[in-house]
């Protein structure tokens, strides 16, 4: 079997967003509206500001959803901003978002997309 070459994607970043349970779908939809290709979500249990708010912390749900989105650096600021606003992260206790720089990423890239990228790269001065 012939080995296909790995098409490595560089200039990518990982956006991680922690929101209260039930908010992830809205945040993902907002990210996709501005060009994010996909996202993964999983549940987590949070602690921190909850203990300081409300009676026994009932104001803030202990169940969190963690969203991971990998985006190109060109899209990073736009996606980050939309996710921040969609998650209402400017409200205390709503959540938290951060960006991790990635060295490289890889996935299935269809042949026609590869050819398009190669031709646009060769046309560049």
């Amino acid at each position: 079997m012939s080995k296909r070459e790995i098409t490595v994607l560089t200039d990518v970043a990982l956006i991680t967003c922690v929101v209260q349970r039930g908010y992830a779908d809205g945040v993902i939809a907002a990210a996709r509206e501005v060009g994010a290709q996909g996202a993964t979500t999983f549940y987590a249990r949070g602690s921190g500001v909850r203990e300081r708010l409300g009676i026994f912390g009932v104001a803030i749900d202990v169940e969190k959803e963690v969203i991971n989105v990998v985006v190109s650096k060109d899209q990073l600021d736009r996606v980050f901003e939309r996710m921040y606003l969609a998650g209402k992260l400017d409200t205390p206790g709503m959540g938290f978002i951060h960006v991790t720089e990635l060295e490289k990423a890889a996935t299935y890239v269809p042949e026609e997309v590869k050819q398009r990228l190669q031709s646009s790269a060769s046309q560049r001065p």
Partner: protein
Amino acid sequence: MCPKRSSRDSRAALASAPSQMIPIQKDQRQITAILPAGVGQKMVELLSLERGLTTASLHRARGVGIVPLIGRKGVGTQVEWELVTVIVARDQADEIFEYIFRQGDIDRPHGGFLYMGALQAATQFLLPDVADDPDATQEFESLSRDELTQP
């Protein structure tokens, strides 16, 4: 009630920690693979058995992305994925990256996604040496696979 601790306290605690006692490893990379359900567990086993990597961990997530629409619009757009995270030294990171890409069969439509980033620092993850304890080894070997995988 959790004790309140400011970030200044945390920094002070870190600064006063006996850093020469903690075996910190620099130049580590974190590789994360988003794999179809069922592939992740096999990947963790492969990394352990074939590459001797015990720093792999697995959790499940639901994914939203370019997936085929099944039936009515919207149905099937969320699928279950397994996320495998492994910490490796920088000098073997590229090799492990390629290994996961090929063994996980990522190079196919809906095959998953793989990414790698640098870590600031990591400690070693050492397992207890059960080989020195014959009773423990015998007990471990007598366990069936089902017993070992039961939570």
